[in-house]
Structures are given as C-alpha cells and as structure tokens.
C-alpha cells in the first residue's frame, strides 16, 4: 500500500505537484495518466525515494519514504539507465547483486518469453529490446510495489503486446501494487483497474475503468479528454 498525504513538489517556483492526497492498494493496476510534463514521473520518483516532496508525506507499507525504500519498490524508469558495454546477462547479474529480492530464475524465464539474447550488449539492443530488458529487470523482483514509467513508450504494437502478456503472467496480484504512468492511454486500457488523471500538477480525477464504461459509457481516453478540456476551460488553477 502506498499513501500520499498532501504532497507538493516544486522545482524552482513551478509546482510539479500540488497538494496531492491518495492511496494505492495491493491487487490493483493503476494507470497514472497525463500529458507530458503533468507530474506523472515526479509522482513515481517520489514514491521510490529518488525525489523528496517539499510538503506532505509519503508512506509505503506504513514506512516513511527515503532512499532505502528501493528495497520494497521496483521502478522502471523512462530513461535508459544501463551500462552500455554490459550484456543482457551482466545486467541481470548486476541487478541480482543490488536487490536481495531479485529472482534470477524468473529473469531467465522472462528473457526467453520476450526473446532476448543473453549475450547481446546493451548498446547493440534495439529500442524495443531495451524496453523489454527494462521490463525483465523490473518484473524479476519480488517487490510489493511495482512502478512503471512509460514502459511502452515508442515501442511497436508487437513489442507492446508481448510486454502486456509478460506483465499479466508475472505480476503477483495477491500482493503487488502496480502503477503504470503513461500518455498512451488506448493501448493499455484493458490492463487497468483504476485510472488517475494528473494535469498541471493537480490530481483532477480518479475513476474505475469498468465503472466509466458501465455508468457513463466512456472509454478511458474519452473520459480523459473530457476532463482535461473541462480543466482548461474552468482553469486548473484552483488555489
């Protein structure tokens, strides 16, 4: 379980996140949706202790978040954080030395499923294969929290499909809390339980995906466009 209590984050004078309070529960996949620069990545970085809030508090399983929280939080960054001369196998071994919960057996199964070559160097991998490797490394940890920042960004539909299948195969739905930040909404809608819309640092709405369809006849994309439009007209600047 993750809890944000009145969390604000400023870079310089600009708010990246404004007074956000929310909890995330195990057994669910959350979609953190917003345009580029809306505060999605900052939210994830704060949950895994890479960035600290200026105001408010963040708890993971009741523990106040600091750098040490990476014990409990597996994080897939949108950036490439690899050592280029390393092979896929080296990366796996390296991760295993960094995280006690890293399961090498599972990593090797995932490498096979996603058709990665263990002997290939990171710098020789295509963008799609680097995306797959990042997912392998994140999913191979037995961490209670799994944060994925734009895991499908720039990947072709085939890669995306194989990654979705790996996610569904290896997420532990009994215990894990999963948050996926993305602006590619359409593609992953069937994967999500709950969706959160972030716009200009404000958490503007939270909905259950099936309730949106059942009660309002809206796809997530339609809902998201509506709500962003409303905020642009009536001003997201409610201070």
């Amino acid at each position, binding site marked *: 379980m993750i809890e944000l209590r009145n969390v604000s984050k400023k870079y310089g004078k600009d708010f990246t996140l404004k007074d956000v309070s929310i909890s995330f529960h195990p057994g669910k996949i959350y979609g953190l949706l917003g345009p580029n620069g809306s505060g999605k990545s900052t939210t994830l970085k704060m949950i895994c202790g890479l960035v600290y809030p200026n105001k408010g508090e963040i708890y993971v399983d009741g523990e106040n978040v600091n750098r040490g929280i990476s014990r409990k939080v597996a994080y897939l960054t949108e950036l490439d954080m690899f050592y280029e001369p390393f092979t896929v196998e080296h990366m796996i071994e390296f991760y295993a030395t960094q995280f006690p919960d890293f399961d090498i057996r599972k990593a090797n199964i995932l490498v096979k499923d996603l058709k990665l070559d263990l002997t290939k160097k990171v710098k020789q991998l295509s963008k799609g294969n680097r995306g797959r490797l990042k997912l392998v490394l994140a999913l191979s940890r037995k961490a209670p929290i799994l944060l994925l920042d734009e895991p499908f960004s720039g990947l072709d539909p085939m890669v995306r499909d194989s990654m979705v299948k790996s996610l569904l*195969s290896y997420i532990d739905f009994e215990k894990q809390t999963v948050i996926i930040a993305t602006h590619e909404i359409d593609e992953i*809608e*069937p994967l999500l339980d709950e969706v959160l819309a972030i716009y200009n640092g404000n958490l503007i709405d939270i909905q259950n995906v099936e309730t949106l369809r059942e009660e309002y006849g809206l796809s997530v994309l339609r809902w998201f466009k509506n709500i962003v439009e409303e905020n642009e007209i009536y001003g997201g600047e409610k201070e």
Partner: protein
Amino acid sequence: MTEEFQTSKPIYMQIAERIFQQIVRGEMASGEKLASVREMAIQTGVNPNTIQRTYSEMERMGIVETRRGQGTFVTENKEILAELKIRLQTDIIESFVKNMKDIGFSKDEIVRGLQDYLSGCDNHD
C-alpha cells in the same frame, strides 16, 4: 494477440459475450473446462480482476459452474444453454429492428426486406 474492445461497453461483458457465442456455436461444449482466470487474462490482454468479474457474472447466470479446486466449467444443464441461444437471438433481432425503425422502416417493410434478403441468399447458396 491482445484483443480490441468496443469503447462504450464494460470489458467484462464483452468477454462474457464472446464466450457465450463460442458456447452457442458449439466451439465450447457443455461440461467443458474454461481457461483459468490468469490464462484468460493473458490470452485477452485484460486485467485479471475484470476476467474474475466475467466469470462471476456467467456463474450468476448459471451458464458456468465453479468447482472448488478444479476450475470453471460450462454448465451441463441443456435447458440453460437452450435459453442462452434464444437470448442471443433476441438480442440481435432487437438491435436489428431498432436500427430499421430508426431509419423509418415499418414492421411490414422490415419483414418483407428480410424475406427478400433471405431468398436472395438461398439463390446464391
């Protein structure tokens, strides 16, 4: 391949409808075991909580049965399966008739149109 879904209808319902069609077409026999929730989630690219809801809903309707520790099975109750077939038929006719009325066709015209179309089909067979 992950499947496509219509935007305005709950996903759990769309998956149930697909399974109903498989049953009615005979692709899935009475008494046959369904894929597990996780397997079905992976096949369809859909969240397992959604699939669980599909299965619960189908169970509530009596179309499938969950046996403890064994899995979920298509019911062996032939009456329920016959009702299901009629229900799917009624749904399709309802939406057809509604569409026809929406563009201004009368009952007689709908019947005549359908008869003409079907006899046309016969000639081609």
